């Protein structure tokens, strides 16, 4: 309906291959970015940031990550929670600075205390560590396929949670077994710790989300992305046309984990401030992210954001309605939340197995064809 594509022709493969080939979309996208960076920061208050915006951005990153693995490369993972934990804990260690022991002469070990690393880089390094762990747990994917793999990833989930529970070094021997984010600043502005301002945390996460989304798009449009999709759609054929399954799957696991790790780090450091592995990064988290990807749409960057938004907003909305308006007990609201989410998952899988993103595509297609039905 709003599309006027006459006279939009491409004279180069660059312009033909761009992310938004249709001018209207392109402009909408730039407008959106502009608003997100220049307008939103001034409108935010703590409630919005805490309740909606931060979780949305952070989970979007996790969803992007899982989407790369499951949506693009076709490897189902139930280990997201565990990987987020890796991100969070390693970020914590980098933030707080930790000791390393290096061999000195005569079998002596010398202890070096690393200085705390800037939070931005701590988050990145968190991602890197997670990537390494992810690759490790990705190795079996070469032999194990389908559900078998999905279940195998549970090993990662449970082992990692257990590990961070038992391994005192990981949480700096704190009595509670919790990790707590110290005050850290970027360009002199606090982004972690108790005294942060809404807009700062928002921008901090937004930067990660936007950049990572762009990177995701770039990776999935290039030959790496194609080799993933080839593996996803028909692994044998893919191998026969020259895709190295080892490389394809491990890169997918690595990059996916990198994203998930970063989101875990942000979740802990910026959003929660403190975390106990069992309750924050449990199996439920893995499913939450998985749902985001399913509802949002497998194999779609946009879908990751839509899915995250949906899964973040739904409970908030319910809570406001049932608890806020009707004054019910919170646990009932929570249970209803489960019921509704569960039902929605099923409904989605039945009506639109390709998720909100597909819905969006269909709508867009209709708008382009308007007034014609097809």
């Amino acid at each position, binding site marked *: 309906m709003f599309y006027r594509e006459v006279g939009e022709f491409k004279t180069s493969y660059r312009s033909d291959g761009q992310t938004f080939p249709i001018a209207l979309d392109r402009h909408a996208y730039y407008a959106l970015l502009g608003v997100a960076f220049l307008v939103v920061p001034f409108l935010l208050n703590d409630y919005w940031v805490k309740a909606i915006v931060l979780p949305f951005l952070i989970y979007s990153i996790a969803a992007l990550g899982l989407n790369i693995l499951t949506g693009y490369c076709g490897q189902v993972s139930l280990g997201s929670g565990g990987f987020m934990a890796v991100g969070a804990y390693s970020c914590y260690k980098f933030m707080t600075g930790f000791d390393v022991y290096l061999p000195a002469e005569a079998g002596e070990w010398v202890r070096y205390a690393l200085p705390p690393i800037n939070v931005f880089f701590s988050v990145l390094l968190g991602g890197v560590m997670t990537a390494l762990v992810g690759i490790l747990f990705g190795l079996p994917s070469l032999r194990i396929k389908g559900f078998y793999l999905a279940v195998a990833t549970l090993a990662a989930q449970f082992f990692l949670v257990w590990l961070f529970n038992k391994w005192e070094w990981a949480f700096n021997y704190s009595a509670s077994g919790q990790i707590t984010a110290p005050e850290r600043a970027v360009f002199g502005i606090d982004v972690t710790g108790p005294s942060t301002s809404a807009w700062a945390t928002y921008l901090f996460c937004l930067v990660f989300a936007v950049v990572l989304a762009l990177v995701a798009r770039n990776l999935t449009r290039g030959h790496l992305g194609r080799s993933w999709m080839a593996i996803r759609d028909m692994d044998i054929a893919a191998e026969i046309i020259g895709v190295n399954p080892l490389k394809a799957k491990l890169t997918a696991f690595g990059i996916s984990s990198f994203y998930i790790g970063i989101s875990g780090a942000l979740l802990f450091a910026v959003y929660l401030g403190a975390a106990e592995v069992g309750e924050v990064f449990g199996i439920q988290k893995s499913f939450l992210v998985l749902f985001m990807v399913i509802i949002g749409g497998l194999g779609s960057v946009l879908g990751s954001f839509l899915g995250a938004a949906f899964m973040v907003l739904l409970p908030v909305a319910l809570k406001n309605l049932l608890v806020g308006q009707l004054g019910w007990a919170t646990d009932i609201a929570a249970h209803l939340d489960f019921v509704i989410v569960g039902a929605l998952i099923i409904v989605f899988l039945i009506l639109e197995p390709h998720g909100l993103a597909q819905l969006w595509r269909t709508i867009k297609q209709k708008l382009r064809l*308007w*007034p014609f039905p097809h």
Partner: protein
Amino acid sequence: MTTTTTVPPELGTFPRVVQRNATTFGERPAYREKAFGIWQGWTWIQAHEQVRALAIGLIDLGVEPADKIAVIGRNRPAFYWTMIAAQYVGAIPVPVYQDSSADEVAYVMEHCGARFAVVDDQEQVDKLLDVSARTPILERIVYVDPRGLRKYDHALLHDFAAVQEKGRTLRAELDPELDRRAALAAGGDAAVILYTSGTTGRPKGVVLTHDNVLATAKNTCAFDSLSEHESILAYLPMAWVGDFVFSMAQATWAGFCVNCPENAGTMHKDLQEIGATYFFAPPRFFEGLLTSIRIRMEDASAFKRWLFDGAIERARAVGPALLEGRDVSLPARLLHRLDHALILGPLLNATGLSAVRVGYTAGEAIGPEIFDFYRSLGINLKQLYGQTEACVFVTQQPDGEVHPDTVGVPCPGVEIRIDDSGEVLYRSPGAFREYYKNPEATADTKDAQGWVSTGDAGFFDSSSGHLRIIDRAKDVGRLANGHLFAPKFTENKLKFYPDILETVVFGRDRTFCTAFINIDLTAVGNWAERNNIAYASYQELAAHPKVYGSIQSHIEAVNRSVAEDERLFDCQVHRFLVLHKELDADDGEITRTGKVRRRTVEQKYATLIEAMHDGSDQVYIETEITYEDGRKGAIRATLEIRDARVEPRADAAAREPAADAARAPAHA
């Protein structure tokens, strides 16, 4: 002729105009071709370079001035360059229809004596190799697409790109020669020879000079103020004069961009992508498009259809008015805005015509409501009348003076005369020089004073002063009472009704007009279903009284509109019958291209025609038919003959025909 209609000598030939473009419009796009998924483009500078490289390559191949170079292929920049390059070296390009058979090609090649041919691909090469077996004249074939040609003997085959490369390497020594030839050429020289696919006999080679074409281009560009900012989609056959004038003459003269589609299949998509601002298409294109729009809307939701119909309805009212700058009430205008935002805009977008600033249709009559539909959408669609011999343009409709049933006013520099028999003659700077190697044909068509007879009968509409074409002159005759008889005029009006597929009107030298009707099985069939009318066969459906009823109402409506016209008053249909079988090419009743073979039909169905005129109200007939597999069979039928109401003639006009008859005693 006034000076405005001629071209200055420094721009007297195509090569000079292209040179001018390279300097004036240098970096502006000259040609685009959708290839390998994107639009490959050439600026005027690049195009000029391509042309010169090719030209030198041609010289190297041994092309001499006055040589003929056949050009066979779909619309591609390479072929437009070829034609200009040919003119550069003083040779004459002869575009040939790419789908014509080996024989047709052979005839043309032989007739024009082409020593060279520049063709598209293996298919054309094979054709020419076949030809060259018969015509020894052909010396060199240059192909653009090397696919499948590797194993051919390259003694006389040349790759287009290779020729150009050779040309580039030889630039140093041959540039002067090229410039010498370019300078030698004069406006009076032949710019192109176009073979008209003659409906009768062998095709004739129409020789058009640089003056002809460029003058026409100059005038018509001025007429519609076409500038270098236009863009056009070149999709009509290159051998057809229209494409030559629009994509060669006007494009080079005005310096606008010629866009070549990827292939026939992607034409619509490409049209939408490019967003042509200047567009020509035959009526059937617009009919087809409208039908497809209707069909697609059929499946739309009720709400959408409601919106759509409403918008179209309102647009029909205000659209043309707005287009012609007449004033429209504010609310109506606002509503139209809204319609545009919601329906019309998207619709135009889908058709790919939203950018069209000047659109033309011609060739045959276009249905008024079809024509109006597009104008109401805001497309400035106009009609023109022309022919190969005139470089297309004889008359055209000025902006703001558009009527579905006329073809407009004489183009700038064109004089028009209607002779006694009602035939249209013209004299113009675009009037062709001669039929190649066919002086007697030339003499028949073009007299000493340069008047060219069109072979069409027409007259100037008293109210609008626009020319109206009524029929082929040879089909136009007189009724017994001496009144003008132009069957096509009535037939066209009838054929605009969807349920009438074909119709033949009789009346030459008779007292009144009668008509055969062929119903359109699909349209009438649907109608029958909707009104639950049962029928077992075409014959039964055709004979159904309800069908007769609706046909009769159509005819009477047509009669009313015919009656509005003084001269053609007596072309009203007094009696008619609905034929029991479709006129069929297998039975030789219509041509393969769907034109009625009047004579054949008259002879074959003489009994029916007699019956209609002797007043009997039914007639028995037994016709032999030929099935697709060639078997013959016969069908018998008794057909009802009906009278249709005709408009009575006002006394004032009653006297007029006598004078009319007196003027043309030959027909009395």
